[in-house]
């Protein structure tokens, strides 16, 4: 074990998992330092949940190794799991118990006892903003409140590493913001965070480093700046219009300076080298392919553009 590995909160090496025909995770390795927040950014089915389930010791990997705070972790390790707080993508709470009962139950499973656990439950209820509804059954909560309770359970034992699997999916903007704020706060307090999402904005806002995952492979990782630097002189062009979008995208991709073109909802995303020079050609190509262009925008290079650059596909389709 080298020094770097010793000082990391999480180290995983060569993770693989296959479900029958589907190879969900194909050799994923990454590392998280104490207090660091790390984002796994990838589209639906990229293998985020599978990776995270292995890391949390819920799923047996076919190959690879996970080390948490210096301890090897498998589904059978008990002690190593104490360092992790896990928040699953799908709600995992008892709807027929109150928030307080849910938390009191899990706090015992995390090994806190007596007075300490009651105090901690109260604290967590404050953090997730459910103190006033603490004694209502969870099934009576709004979607956002349930999500917050789901997260609260992962915070009970103040873990070294908090793992959140797409915690904002299906949440209204207000609750979403509240969730992002509390994650920022926790990571500000020195908790390491592993955060999966397919929202570029969340990864950019929350994460010190981001790993881009697609089809079970980690395509690239680094800080936002490092990843954007991968684009080189590439610019992202966002074109909206109506008509034969598919055909237009194909035709645009033929242009030398266009690296990738992908069709979105009434729009085409293009990754272009030296966009300002080539823009007129793109427009004529698009209209001769039968598209009426409504607007053209050149965007700041961002992680979505990086994803397009690395995979040839848009992050969201």
């Amino acid at each position, binding site marked *: 074990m080298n020094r770097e590995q010793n000082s990391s909160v999480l180290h995983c090496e060569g993770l693989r998992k296959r479900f029958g025909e589907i190879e969900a995770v194909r050799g994923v390795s990454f590392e998280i330092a104490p207090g660091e927040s790390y984002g796994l950014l990838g589209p639906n089915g990229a293998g985020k949940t599978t990776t995270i389930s292995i890391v949390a010791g*819920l799923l047996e990997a076919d190959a690879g190794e996970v080390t948490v705070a210096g301890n090897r972790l498998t589904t059978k390790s008990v002690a190593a799991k104490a360092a*992790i707080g896990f928040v*699953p993508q799908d*709600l995992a709470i*008892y709807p027929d*118990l109150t928030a307080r009962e849910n938390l009191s139950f899990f706090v*015992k*499973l995390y090994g806190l*006892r007596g007075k300490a656990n009651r105090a901690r439950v109260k604290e967590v209820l404050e953090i997730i903003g459910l103190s006033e509804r603490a004694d209502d059954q969870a099934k009576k909560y709004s979607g956002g409140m349930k999500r917050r309770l789901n997260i609260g359970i992962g915070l009970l034992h103040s873990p070294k590493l908090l793992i959140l699997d797409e915690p904002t999916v299906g949440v209204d903007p207000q609750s979403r913001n509240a969730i992002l704020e509390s994650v920022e706060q926790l990571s500000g307090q020195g908790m390491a965070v592993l955060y999966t999402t397919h929202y570029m904005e969340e990864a950019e806002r929350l994460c010190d480093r981001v790993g881009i995952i697609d089809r079970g492979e980690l395509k690239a990782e680094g800080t936002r700046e490092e990843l954007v630097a991968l684009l080189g002189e590439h610019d992202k062009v966002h074109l909206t219009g109506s008509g034969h979008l598919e055909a237009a995208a194909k035709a645009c991709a033929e242009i030398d300076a266009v690296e990738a073109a992908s069709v979105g909802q009434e729009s085409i995303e293009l990754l272009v080298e030296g966009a300002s020079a080539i823009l007129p050609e793109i427009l004529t190509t698009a209209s001769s392919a039968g598209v009426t262009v409504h607007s053209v925008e050149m965007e700041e290079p961002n992680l979505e553009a990086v994803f397009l650059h690395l995979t040839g596909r848009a992050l969201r389709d």
Partner: protein
Amino acid sequence: MKVLAIVKTELTRTFRWRANIFFLLIMPMGLILLLGVAFGNSATRIGVVEKEKGQLASQLVATLGNQPGLDTKSYDNLGSLERAVERGYVSAGLVLGSNYDQRLQAGKAVTIRYFARPDSTAPQIRVALESSVAAQGSALVAARIVHSEQGRSFKSALRRVNAVKATAPVGVSLLAAGGGKYPTGGGQFQQSASTQLLLFAFLSALNGAVWLIETRRLGVARRMLSTPSSSREIMLGIVLGRWVITLLQAAMIVFFSWLIFSVHWGDPFGTGAIILVFSLVAVGAGVLIGSLCSSAQQAGPIAMIVGLVFAAIGGSMEPLQYFPATMRKIAHITPHAWANDAFGTLLSNGGNLANVWLDVVVLGAYAAVLLTLATWRLRRVLTT
């Protein structure tokens, strides 16, 4: 500690659902009540009209009522008694005339009227009636002799005879076939209570499969595995929770059948041991189904069918002693058959734990195998 937390949560959730309280406790009690009304009152009833409440008339009625399996019910007049017999409220009618006491004390003969429904109980009631009449008759004869030879009043002679009779040298006491105390009360219901207990405990423990699948679907079972708790603690908690619930149900059935129908449950250690291991077998089967099936729609009917078929084969619907020999052998692939055998020994034959140790061991083996399979399988579905 963690195990207890899981058990406590299971119990809290179970009893928070009104439907569970109904299925676990109220429904079995209702069925016991129903069966009790249908089969439980095994005593044959005989209606009586006493035109005048004399001492001797009352004595005859009391003697009759004390006969095993016979109860008396008094009616005001002949008309209502006849109607009651016709409609089958009572099996037979007895009319004691207004001069019953008077004529007997005067040394004269009396005739009593007796009529019965034309069914199989009529001859039995007749025998019971004749023996009651004979008992009173012999006392009257003896009193008449004392009266005429010692010159006492007839009343005091009769008192003297009755006093002597109370210390009669020959007595009959009923013992069970195995030599134990004959179960008083409970009667026919004695057997159905224990077989129903097995049927229900098994059925509702199997139904725990549906509950378990629900817990799996909620994701909480898996989430427990992300905490620093061993899968052994988690499995133990889940199994113990189901076990406690099944035992609570069994305890309710025992208690209320005793309270309402005076069912005797025999040696507490023997009966306790059988209920403990049998419930554990049932819980093991429930958890196994719950970890093999992927949906509640699948598990529900399977639990129901397995529960009823095992109960039928294992003698919880029709008693094992009515089975042909081969069927009785086959029956013993079910845990019910072993438990029913044990209850037979404990409840009808006055046996104790030492007489049923083999049944306890066999049931224990069932429990061990099922629980091992179930927890292995459950851990697998949660982590792959």
